[in-house]
């Protein structure tokens, strides 16, 4: 069993900004070194690596920069923002099965200054040939299509999306590292924001950020020797339901029941910690409606109830389930969700800017709407 066999013992992150001068390789190398220092482990001891298939820096480059020794495990997880906790899961499996002893996971991305992936499309091939020629071009458009249907099917409104955006922003306003630290958002600010893809406005969309993050995974036994309290990887899973299409999930019986449900089934099956036990969550938020869908998918409410769950500060500090306590992708930084992992670790260490006092476990998810992953961390 993987349960509590491994732990995250080091985390680090670069500054977050619209534009950073350093290269993605330099940023990745720096945060990995910093995460190893946080863990009290020498770079030469690193023998395992995992990242995203969309990561531009390779194991070869990273190993050369940080001065790693013999590497015995290296692997990647696909599907962009679906990868995060799955990357940590790869290391947990590798460490637990003896394929490596010290694993590092990282994501380094200059998405703020490096351009928008969708903007380079000159052609529409593969599944994109059924959507892009009709002007459904960007991730925001693809998720807006599901959002409109959700609103129609369950009676949700922009007020609910506003709940999400403003709640997460409040958390960022307490986090000096968050890009939106000093930018308050009122409900009027939200309602008056320009459209990106109706029914989604600017503030339903994540930030565009340059940044890098890393974490270090070792065995639970080794974790006892590290300077910080161990944050155990209690359960981890990926999720890909039948007949799913990444992002454009329009070709099955129930498009609003996405990968989160499949992932949650696997996650809780191997977990002593169930939704009722979880007191803080980091839910992937490239778009505000993904939080609503994830609240349902990961069992915090029934289907169609995710929107109302956000009412009355439901996902704010002090609410039913504080979500994205560092500000998430919407208001801290958008680095493919890796900041959610590090914030989950801080919550378990008791060092979050928005610490949930009685939280002894934290759910961290990757993106709903793509083949996804999730992890339950515990103290």
């Amino acid at each position: 069993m993987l349960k509590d066999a491994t732990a995250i013992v080091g985390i680090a992150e670069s500054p977050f900004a619209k534009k950073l001068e350093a290269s993605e390789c330099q940023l990745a190398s720096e945060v990995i070194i910093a995460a190893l220092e946080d863990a009290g482990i020498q770079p030469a001891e690193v023998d395992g690596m995992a990242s995203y298939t969309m990561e531009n820096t390779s194991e070869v480059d990273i190993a050369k920069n940080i001065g790693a020794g013999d590497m015995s495990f290296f692997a990647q997880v696909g599907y962009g923002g679906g990868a995060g906790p799955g990357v940590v899961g790869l290391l947990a499996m590798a460490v637990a099965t003896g394929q490596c002893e010290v694993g590092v996971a990282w994501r380094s991305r200059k998405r703020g200054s490096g351009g928008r992936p969708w903007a380079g499309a000159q052609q529409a091939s593969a599944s994109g040939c059924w959507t892009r020629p009709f002007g459904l071009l960007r991730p925001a458009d693809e998720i807006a299509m599901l959002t409109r249907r959700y609103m129609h099917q369950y009676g949700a409104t922009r007020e609910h999306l506003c709940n999400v955006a403003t709640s997460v922003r409040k958390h960022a306003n307490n986090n000096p590292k968050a890009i939106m630290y000093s930018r308050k958002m009122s409900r009027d600010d939200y309602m008056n924001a320009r459209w990106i893809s109706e029914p989604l406005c600017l503030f339903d969309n994540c930030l565009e950020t340059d940044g890098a993050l890393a974490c270090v995974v070792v065995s639970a036994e080794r974790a006892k020797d590290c300077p910080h309290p161990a944050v155990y990887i209690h359960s981890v899973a990926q999720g890909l339901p039948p007949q799913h299409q990444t992002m454009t999930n329009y070709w099955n019986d129930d498009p609003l029941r996405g990968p989160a449900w499949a992932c949650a089934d696997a996650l809780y099956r191997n977990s002593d910690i169930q939704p009722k036990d979880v007191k803080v969550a980091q839910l992937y938020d490239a778009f505000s409606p993904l939080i609503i869908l994830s609240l349902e998918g990961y069992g915090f409410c029934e289907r169609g109830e995710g929107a109302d769950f956000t009412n009355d500060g439901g996902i704010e500090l002090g609410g039913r389930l504080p979500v994205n306590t560092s500000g998430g992708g919407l208001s801290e930084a958008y680095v493919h969700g890796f900041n959610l992992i590090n914030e989950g670790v801080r919550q378990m260490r008791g060092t979050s800017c928005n610490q949930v006092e009685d939280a002894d476990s934290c759910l961290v998810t990757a993106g709903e709407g793509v083949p996804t992953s999730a992890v339950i961390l515990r103290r």
Partner: protein
Amino acid sequence: MSEMLLPVIGDDETPFWEAARKGELRIQTCKSCDRMRFPPRPMCPWCNSTQSEWKLTQGRGTIWSFVVPHPPLLPQFMDLAPYPVIAVTLDEDPKIRFIGNLVERSGDAINVIDPSTIEIGQAVEVFFDPVNEEIHMPRWVRV
């Protein structure tokens, strides 16, 4: 029209666009279990047969959802924005949802319809608008 974002047609998609040139909406259908599947692919996920045919549909459906993109967009779409994009469930099999554009007649730009008149549940019908010799784009009109 050469600046339009056109579909790249692979082997799996070729029969769809061949039918489109004849004004027909055809869907890949398993020869063994008779179930439709979309997008097209080599194997039926329900019976694993690789034998398929392309069945003629009535080309009618219902608006399942829609969005209205605003800039920033690809250059080809900037001048058209905001424009509606609809998702249409096909009458023959409601798990097949076409992404497409609602217009009034052949030759219309994709921003011709006022988005505020669009409602989920409206009935629509397909026609095919030639943009070049190879590509006849499916477009939808309300019925």
